[in-house]
């Protein structure tokens, strides 16, 4: 038993070390960082955070990211729900092919789509809007949401649907008031995964925006390179990007693995 916990503890320490370093650095002034090595901040400062919370180019990065991530999550789950229901309950012409085709979009390298996406969203006049990034991220989030929801729906017995119809429920009323609440854990997990993959993605988010909808991740790369080596600021901005993830993860902690397994554990 002892040997086992050592493995787990070592791994957790390994996971936490780089995060600790990022957080520690965010509380150091720049000259202390560049001056030499120190395990703990010698001069504790909140100056880096103050810059982020007072400079609109910084804090708008966060607001932009949160707007498009939320939009993406809403769109992805909304369109995936009926589709997942169809895949889990019915056989129809081309269902397997369609399912596999959806799967292939999860495999496409984002780099392949960077340039065509730029042209497509410029052509339809959505370039540099939150909606453009939200729609672009549905490319990999919609298929993911469909699989996860389909996995959870497969666990709900068909008798539920049949009983509701016998009781005189129309399909839309059954779906919204009975079925969706039944699989609300699955909806939560699907929403979590859409949030996650939209939040961490940078390449498409950066390509599809310039000023008005620029994500925080892009703000960071630009500021870091133009302002030289402002490591403290970079560390503070990085630390703040961890917080939303840490909050949402707490709510789905018992379902994360099931979500990654597309609901098929």
């Amino acid at each position, binding site marked *: 038993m002892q040997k*086992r*916990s050592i*493995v*787990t503890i070592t791994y957790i320490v*390994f*996971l936490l*070390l*780089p*995060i*600790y370093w*990022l957080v520690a*650095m965010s509380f150091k002034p720049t000259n202390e960082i560049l001056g*030499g*090595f120190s*395990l703990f901040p010698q001069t504790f400062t909140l100056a880096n955070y103050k810059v982020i919370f007072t400079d609109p180019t910084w804090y708008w990065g966060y607001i932009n990211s949160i707007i498009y991530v939320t939009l993406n999550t809403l769109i992805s789950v*909304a369109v995936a729900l*009926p*589709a997942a229901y*169809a*895949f889990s*309950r*019915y*056989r*129809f*012409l081309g269902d397997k092919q369609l399912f596999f085709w959806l*799967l292939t*979009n999860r*495999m*496409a*390298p*984002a*780099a*392949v789509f*960077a340039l*065509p*996406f730029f042209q*497509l969203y410029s052509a339809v006049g959505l370039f540099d809007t939150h909606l453009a990034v939200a*729609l672009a991220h*549905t*490319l990999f989030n*919609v298929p993911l949401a469909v699989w996860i929801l389909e996995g959870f729906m497969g666990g709900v017995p068909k008798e539920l649907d049949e009983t509701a119809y016998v009781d005189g429920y129309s399909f839309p009323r059954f779906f919204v008031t009975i079925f969706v609440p039944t699989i609300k854990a699955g909806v939560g997990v699907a929403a979590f995964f859409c949030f996650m993959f939209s939040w*961490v993605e*940078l390449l498409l988010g950066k390509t599809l925006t310039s000023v008005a909808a620029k994500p925080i*991740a892009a703000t*960071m*790369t630009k500021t*870091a390179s133009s302002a030289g080596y402002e490591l403290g600021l970079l560390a503070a901005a*990085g630390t703040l990007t*961890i917080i939303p*993830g*840490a909050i*949402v*993860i707490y709510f789905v*902690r*018992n379902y994360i*693995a099931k979500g*990654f*397994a597309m609901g*098929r*554990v």
Partner: protein
Amino acid sequence: MKTENQKAWFFVLPVLILVAFNALIPMMTVVNYSVQETFGDNLFFWEGLTWFENLLRSERFHAALGRQFLFTFLILIIEVPLGIAIAMSMPRKGIWVPFCLVIMALPMLIPWNVVGAMWNIFTLPDIGLMGYFLNHVLGISYDMTQNVFAAWVTIIIMDVWHWTSLVVLLSYAGLVSIPEAYYQAAKIDGASNFAVFRFIQLPKMKNVLTIAILLRFIDSFNIYTEPFVLTGGGPGNSTTLLSIDLVKIALGQFDLGPAAAMSLIYFAITLLVSWLFYTLMTKDDVRS
């Protein structure tokens, strides 16, 4: 049993339209570029399969592809066994379980460029925790901006840090689904630890492990942001993986034709390998 119902197409229509808009139109653009040459001003000339021929003979492409396969191979052989080992050592119940799960999932929730930046700060030779420790405490000369080997070790460790938890979480989910009675039966039979692993735990983890391997293959093969931020593809071209090279050609040099041809070949390789996994997975489903 599923019922046959063609009206189900109406349910999948929104998904179909949305994904088709995002996948088919850009894909057609890529196909279009891949057979043409442009000198700007929207002037295009038919090139046929020239770009594909050039690419398949190009040493630069072979080198990037080779590095990409090496990277993915190393990631899989390190992360999969390590993930299984950690999942087996995790507590099955008690107050530490949610704590472990949340900490382990945390790296996956950090934006990819922040992961790169974080590891950059962490590995700076004189002022980063890992860089300082290696150089000044252990006395190993370490600078990933100068040394190819150090750069590779760093991007591998970074990816292990970032994604091993995925394998851990999935294996763990498989492990906790094993009823206690199985272990008791094994104990009565006097089975060794290895036999328990080989004949009880591994078969139970098989499904989730296939998904873990598939996801790790796809994501490590398509990786872009983290190594780009960490090493910028250097020193030299030593860590220029396939995506980094592609973005360099497409957005850096604006060579649309060659970049498009490369995109198609890249996607085709990902698809082919993933399809092999998919067939293996569904074949097992039928058998069991």
